């Protein structure tokens, strides 16, 4: 068995991607994800891969589109403002049903915002982000180990469902180091008869395209795609529950917010409050069933977010307003403290009188 190594989250993503068979990376410098690009720049030439610093985020995502259309594993990474620029390309990748990985190591916004960690691209990531009806599969790691594991998972799901996936991290996750057991090298085994490889004069030409001028045809592609999405919603939801069995207060948080929240849940339990943590790992598909189930035995939810409250809408939808949902948040690059989360837990638990 290989041993654990100490790595930054950004580096763990890069190494895991290489081990998942990704040999093409396109990016543009932006804090706080630059270590990922730097790692790729160092490693790719040594393993016969391609690292290319593109002229823009827009060019980078379109290079990704190009490689994806050949069926090879490919990725790009950026941080919030850069991911906004990529939205056009992501929409085309979704519309052409191509597998690819986009990594967003989020920072505060809107606009140029800041460079400190944030989760304020939740809407953009989970609701489509670009124009048109589409989804990305969005995975949210909350440890460096998961930065690696979920990167591999993103490639696997992208190939399985022929669609773009996003690893939604944040500046903290990207910059922090933790021991990580790197995943084994994996070969790509998925057949891709649709890929552009040259006809070799052996078959009809393949076309990768998202243009359908006849609305009834375009409608059909949308319906078909959403049928695929419903299968994903059925089969691919991932989440982690901590002390949820008898919980009366359900804290919902992902990524770095889940790490902070766990401390608060531990402390709440010490103080006799039955708190539990529900940590979505897939943000799309959102673990709605788990939230719904929690709503049956909890009296309140606390949504802990590094944003002005985005995931809270999904919690409200999933819990069908059976119980109140309180927002516990910081924004702009600030991170809620365990004390702040604990205060929210106490508030909804009604233990403050």
């Amino acid at each position: 068995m290989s041993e654990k190594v100490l790595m930054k989250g950004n580096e763990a993503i890069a190494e895991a991607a290489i081990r998942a068979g990704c040999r093409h990376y396109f990016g543009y410098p932006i804090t706080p994800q630059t270590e990922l690009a730097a790692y790729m720049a160092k490693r790719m030439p040594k393993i016969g891969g391609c690292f290319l610093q593109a002229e823009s985020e827009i060019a980078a995502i379109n290079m990704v589109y190009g490689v994806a259309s050949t069926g090879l594993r490919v990725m790009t990474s950026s941080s919030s403002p850069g991911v906004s620029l990529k939205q056009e390309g992501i929409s085309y990748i979704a519309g052409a049903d191509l597998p690819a990985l986009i990594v967003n190591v989020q920072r505060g916004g809107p606009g140029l915002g800041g460079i400190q960690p944030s989760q304020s691209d939740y809407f953009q990531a989970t609701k489509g982000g670009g124009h048109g009806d589409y989804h990305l599969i969005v995975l949210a790691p909350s440890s460096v180990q998961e930065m690696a594991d979920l990167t591999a998972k993103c490639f696997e799901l992208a190939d399985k469902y022929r669609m773009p996936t996003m690893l939604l991290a944040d500046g903290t996750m990207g910059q922090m180091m933790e021991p990580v057991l790197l995943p084994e090298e994996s070969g790509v085994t998925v057949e891709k008869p649709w890929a552009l490889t040259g006809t070799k004069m052996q078959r009809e030409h393949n076309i990768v395209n998202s243009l359908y001028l006849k609305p009834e045809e375009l409608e059909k592609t949308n319906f078909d795609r959403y049928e695929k999405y419903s299968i994903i919603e059925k089969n691919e939801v991932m989440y982690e529950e901590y002390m949820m069995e008898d919980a009366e207060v359900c804290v919902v948080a992902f990524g770095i917010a889940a790490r902070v929240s766990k401390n608060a849940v531990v402390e709440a339990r010490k103080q006799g409050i039955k708190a539990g943590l529900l940590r979505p790992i897939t943000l799309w598909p959102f673990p709605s069933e788990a939230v719904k189930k929690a709503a049956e035995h909890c009296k309140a939810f606390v949504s802990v977010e590094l944003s002005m409250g985005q995931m809270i809408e999904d919690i409200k939808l999933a819990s069908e307003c059976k119980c109140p949902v309180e927002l516990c948040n910081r924004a702009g690059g600030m991170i809620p403290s365990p004390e702040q989360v604990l205060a929210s837990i106490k508030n909804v638990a009604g233990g403050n009188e």
Partner: protein
Amino acid sequence: MVVFEKPHALCDVPLHYCPGCTHGIVHRLVAQAIDELGIEGDAIGVAPVGCAVMAYDYFSCDMVEAAHGRAPAVATGIKRALPDNIVFTYQGDGDLASIGMAETVHAATRNENITIIFINNAIYGMTGGQMAPTSLPGQVTQTSPYGRDVATAGFPIKVSELLAALDGPAYIQRVAVNNVKNVKQAQKAIKKAFENQIQGKGFSLIEVVSSCPTNWGMTPQQALDWVEEKMIPYYPLGVYKDKTSEEGEK
């Protein structure tokens, strides 16, 4: 006796282009080059957004449809993934010289080993005749109804001259397809642009001065005359850069 045959690399479907539009000629020249070089089985084409948006239905090689202006970036990705395949883009002036200028310049400066066919007809055709980056000074379009005023709209971009100023690109030539002589020249240039790629020479771009009778508001013949009288004087034909003879294989 067959006197005229459709190239194999061109699909047997009706093209949607307007009467008198020279896209058809250029499509044929591209397909003919692919046939002559025997590269159809390896070719991957990138279609633009613009009048040639449906080029993916017209060429019988593998095709991908790019976002507006991004074809050189898409082609870069494909070529980096499949260096042994032959990758080309087919783009108009709005696509290549306006919204996609960054992608164009950077693919050129990286000397990506790809072939770009650039149709310069001085207008946005698909959207109905708006001012293009290459519209001539004084040219009347839907969005320059009083003629292109260079004081506010700036000057036309001379793509071949601009790219030739870079150290990167291997081959830049401007041709036209308004008469038989020029078509023959264009045919040679396009074939050379593919040969360059086969030989690993790098980035080749052929700018084809074309016509758009519909949006210029002319008959096809008037349009061809306008190419001769107005376009070519502003966009002189010729080889602007040729590193292919001075360098060995890339």
